[in-house]
């Protein structure tokens, strides 16, 4: 015999090799070591260490080949596709970056669209018994407006319906509005919803701070009052409770702030709730008599007797 393999290398290999391979690999290495040591013991030791290092880095693995599984070919195909995809991505980093960017854009766009669809179409309005809230429209005569199924409502028609309708507990007329806000910093264009008497009772939401409009405030004499959205209150009044009772200049006229709506009232899926301000319609008698101008919307709450 010609000496022995480096003991430390043998110990390392014994530790690293799986039990099923240990005997055969160590035996092979020792056998070849002796053959080489007959020529040069130093060269044999160097060779043994090289083999040890290579075996430490990548020892023989058991079960490296997995025969194709039967019965779940779909899963096997998906897994092998995934493995191939990962290998391709690793080999081409710039392609991988492009793939990740495209996936991120796709997922982001999908999420954004779903968020809108969820908020607008799928999630019920956060209003009391929202399934009993109805939008009411005017149906125009088809002879004059062929193909047009729905019209906005005129004030005179609305007041007729309000007087005669039996299916609804209450009805309210409203429309969008735009004011120029002045008096503090730079003039600012602000959207508002002008609402008729009963609007907040019908939607079933009270003010978070202060109050909603009274019936008397839906008149020209007392209609210069305003309710703020939660967002407007925070952005323009720093969420100060002292905002109630203060005044705002809208289109050059003074409006007293009487309330602030809760944040949950603002809902993108219904424009009447989504504006920063609400003011009373405060129609004059002349406004109420207009029948031919259809510029208003109507919300109503079904009576308990109706289904």
């Amino acid at each position, binding site marked *: 015999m010609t000496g022995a393999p480096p003991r430390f290398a043998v110990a390392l290999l014994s530790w690293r090799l799986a039990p099923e391979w240990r005997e055969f*690999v*160590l035996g092979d290495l020792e056998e070849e070591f002796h053959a080489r040591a007959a020529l040069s013991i130093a060269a044999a030791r160097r060779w043994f260490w090289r083999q040890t290092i*290579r075996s430490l880095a*990548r020892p*023989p693995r058991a*079960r*490296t080949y997995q*025969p194709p599984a039967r019965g779940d070919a779909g899963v096997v195909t998906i897994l092998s596709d995934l493995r191939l995809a990962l290998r391709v991505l690793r080999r081409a980093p710039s392609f991988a970056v492009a793939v990740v960017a495209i996936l991120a854009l796709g997922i982001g766009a999908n999420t954004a669209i779903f968020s809108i669809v969820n908020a607008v179409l799928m999630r019920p309005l956060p209003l009391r018994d929202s399934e009993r809230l109805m939008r009411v429209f005017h149906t125009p005569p088809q002879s004059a407006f062929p193909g047009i199924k729905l019209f906005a409502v005129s004030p005179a028609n609305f007041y007729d319906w309000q007087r005669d309708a039996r299916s609804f507990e209450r009805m309210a007329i409203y429309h969008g509005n735009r004011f120029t806000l002045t008096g503090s910093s730079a003039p600012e264009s602000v959207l508002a919803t002008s609402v008729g008497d009963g609007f907040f009772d019908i939607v079933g939401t009270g003010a978070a701070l202060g109050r909603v409009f009274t019936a008397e405030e839906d008149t020209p004499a007392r209609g210069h009052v305003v309710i703020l959205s939660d967002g407007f209150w925070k952005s323009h009044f720093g969420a100060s409770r002292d905002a109630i009772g203060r005044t705002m200049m809208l289109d050059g006229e003074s409006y007293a702030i009487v309330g602030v709506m809760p944040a949950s009232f603002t809902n993108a899926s219904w424009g009447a709730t989504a504006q920063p301000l609400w003011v009373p319609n405060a129609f004059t008698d002349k406004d109420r008599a207009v029948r031919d101008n259809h510029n208003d919307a109507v919300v109503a709450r079904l009576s308990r007797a109706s289904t």
Partner: protein
Amino acid sequence: MDIPHNVGDFEQLVLLGVLQLGGDAYGAAIRQEIHARSGRDVSINAVYTTLDRLEQKGLLSSWVGEPTAQRGGRRRKFYEVRPAGLAAIRQAYLALRAMANGLERKLEAK
């Protein structure tokens, strides 16, 4: 008859090494046979990994010999080529020979 397995480049070398060694094919001998014939100084772990894979594919069978003093009292693991392994290496050989046909002068030029 089953369709022969496709075998990779190193698997072909290992299968041919086992065939060349007849009944005396074990890890170290196969490693030396490949080194001597092809010039590739492969590691013993690469040889065993491939032997194991070929056995899993059903192309090789193995058995364990007796302990020897030369191996520090350890046993050898011997391999032999099964019919499926012979079919696989034959297919690889015939394909390579067919593809190389007519190119001998170019391929064997020093």
